[in-house]
């Protein structure tokens, strides 16, 4: 049971009874139960939503950190490749070469 997608909390209500909110998923909006992130969730935060419930808030710092590490890896690889062949601009990526063996 895995389909959880990130969306931005745009509204919050119902705190007296059951914390609910409206979450925007790239242009699509739905009512979501915020009970499990109620203590921390603020309008503007991103949440992972599964079957109408926010099960976590996206740790944006962490996301940024790991994403940048990945991008660096990407550039690092290109750098290594360039060093190996000596010089010159990075080649156009050859689709077939990365395809299935």
């Amino acid at each position, binding site marked *: *049971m*895995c*389909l959880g997608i990130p969306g931005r909390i745009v509204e919050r209500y119902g705190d007296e009874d059951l914390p609910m909110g409206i979450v925007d998923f*790239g*242009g*699509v*909006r739905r009512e979501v139960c915020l009970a499990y992130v109620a203590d921390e969730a603020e309008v503007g935060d991103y949440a992972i939503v*599964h079957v109408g419930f926010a099960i976590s808030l996206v740790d944006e710092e962490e996301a940024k950190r790991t994403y940048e590490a990945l991008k660096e890896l990407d550039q690092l690889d290109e750098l290594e490749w360039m060093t190996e062949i000596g010089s010159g601009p990075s080649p156009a990526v050859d689709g077939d070469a990365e*395809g299935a063996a």
Partner: protein
Amino acid sequence: MSGDDRRSGGIGTTGLVCPAPAPEGDRVVLGHGSGGKLSARLLRDRFLPRFDNPVLAALGDGAAVRVGSESLAISTDTFVVSPLEFPGGDIGLLAVHGTLNDVAMMGAEPICLSAGFVLEEGLPFDVLDRVLDSMAAAAGEAGVPLVTGDTKVVERGKADGLYVNTTGLGRLRAEFRPGPARARPGDVVLVSGPVGRHGIAIMAVREGLAFEAEVESDTANLGPLVERLRGRCGDAVRVLRDPTRGGVASALNEIASASRVAIQLDEGALPVPGAVAAACEMLGLDPLYVANEGVLVAIVAPEAVEAALAALRDHPTGAGAVKIGDVRDRPAGMVSLRTALGGSRVVDMLPGDQLPRIC
């Protein structure tokens, strides 16, 4: 009879339509109306044997019939969508555009329409008026008269408000006969605009899913697009199909099977509007299987691709036309997709409708 059942509604206030791959039962299930494999089987096993004739057996979107020295195209379709009115349109627009489009996909020039109505006791007049206004406007804009019709009323609870059948007659031209069996290896697959809008617009207002999306149905008359293609490319247009129920995937599967060719799509090339993509993410749906009502798929000879794209883009409805894939010779009947990663997967015909998933 069209091989393309166009059912996009649930029953009354119940939830979504569902696929049904189960072993043969003894009665009709919702999946039989989805335009997928079950629908195909229903036609082949129950209808065809009883009405056996070569015209019907071709199972196109419409039929070609010779009348004297002319060939006429006939197509019929029944519309049962619920709710009757939805973002971007209503059942009336679907009914007129849908049948005009089926006639156009055969390459025919539309002549006239008929319409048969089943009205539910209790349907408010203002709803009926709006639907009829839509039909009049759509037919008027296309320059195609509604020449005959019929109306019945059934008891409350029996028709979801309103069901309508439309039949269209058109004039076929010898030099322009696109057909599902005409695709050849080397041909190119084009789509006239962004996909997935109609299906998502309907789902957004269907009970049980309740989401808001900035998505409207794309219902449109595709006749003008087809005329431009005919004018610029003529016979180089091998196949035309409007991917309604079952989406682009189902339409291409039918074509690949009829033409005994393989079709390979390029995932990155498929035009999916942001909000449609987002809704599909949320529900676990694949845009390739979501219904369209204002988009056509065209398979054209390679030398005509540029002209075809220019022809489509010449009209607002075709402004977003792009190439999405190629026709190969093997494996025959298979539609596959090359992913951005370089991997590939098979894009099958679904047994029934696509369902939202949580996994």
